């Protein structure tokens, strides 16, 4: 018994650490291979909260709403006029930047609402294209505003903010996109 204990102590077992780097390398290669650094991109939206059925939605004046209708064939109706997807951006720009001048467009940017309505059979692709045009119009406005403040673009303005909630451009030019409940269609 005594002999055995003595022997163990003398050996002073040490784990070789020379292979540590190799093990780490192997793990590193595994994680390098499995990592996907593709950033998820998309069009961000905030859905309206569920409405209380007893509460009436706030009244919005007709002139402040820019109505975009897309039917199941993917045809666009802009303020009751047949038009194309490419025309949406310009129309949104004039609508939001109207400042009450033209009676057909909005009173002021913060009151302007863009409403998108589709049929249930409308292709999703058309809806995204429409939404994309609307957001591109807003991006253009924000970029312009940021440039007038002396920034390169809106992105630079946003990253310069200490508090992302105190975004003056967004406050003055809020993007109010309303997604209307689609018609049941045929």
């Amino acid at each position: 018994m005594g002999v055995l204990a003595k022997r163990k102590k003398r050996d002073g077992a040490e784990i070789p650490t020379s292979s540590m780097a190799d093990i780490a390398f192997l793990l590193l290669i595994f994680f390098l291979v499995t990592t996907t650094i593709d950033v998820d991109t998309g069009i961000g939206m905030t859905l309206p909260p569920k409405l209380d059925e007893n509460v009436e939605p706030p009244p919005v004046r007709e002139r402040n709403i820019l109505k975009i209708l897309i039917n199941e064939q993917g045809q666009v109706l802009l303020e009751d006029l047949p038009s194309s997807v490419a025309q949406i951006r310009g129309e949104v720009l004039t609508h939001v930047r109207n400042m009450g001048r033209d009676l057909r467009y909005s009173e002021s940017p913060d009151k302007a609402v863009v409403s998108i309505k589709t049929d249930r059979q409308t292709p999703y692709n058309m809806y995204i294209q429409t939404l994309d045009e609307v957001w591109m119009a807003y991006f253009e406005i924000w970029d312009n505003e940021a440039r007038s403040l002396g920034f390169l673009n809106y992105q630079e303005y946003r990253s310069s903010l200490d508090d992302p909630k105190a975004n003056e451009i967004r406050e003055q030019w809020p993007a109010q996109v309303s997604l209307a409940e689609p018609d049941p269609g045929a």
Partner: protein
Amino acid sequence: MAHFTKKSKAKPQISTASLPDIIFMLLIFFMVTTVLREQEVQVRAVLPMAEALTKIEQKRYVSYVYTGPEKLRGNRFGDIKVQIDDAIIDDLTNIRTIMYSKLVAEPRLIVSMRIDEESDMGVLTDVQSELRDAGALRINYSSRRDITGL
């Protein structure tokens, strides 16, 4: 010339003692950033193309909703189905409870809608109305950058 020979005589050696540390640092970086794909997508979701894209910075808040024609055997596609996590949801009203429990676990939840470009608005509307019922209001229509230009 003499100057050069002098240099070659002194043999500089880079110490490799810190090599394991550097490797460990890299290892830890990749371990932290790795998201292992834990689910198999059972529907086709060819994303639409768009320009006005924003990036989702916080990937850990994201929950995916896949919508598109179901992948069948033999390269065929079936009806349009909705998939959350690793299961196809047949009864869309279940989305409400699923999303609500996700929202309770993570209040900053972002729902990324990975919807096939050939599906229609009807199914999207149904999913969205369920999301509104659950209170999961931050959504993102996942789309690709249009690389063909304008």
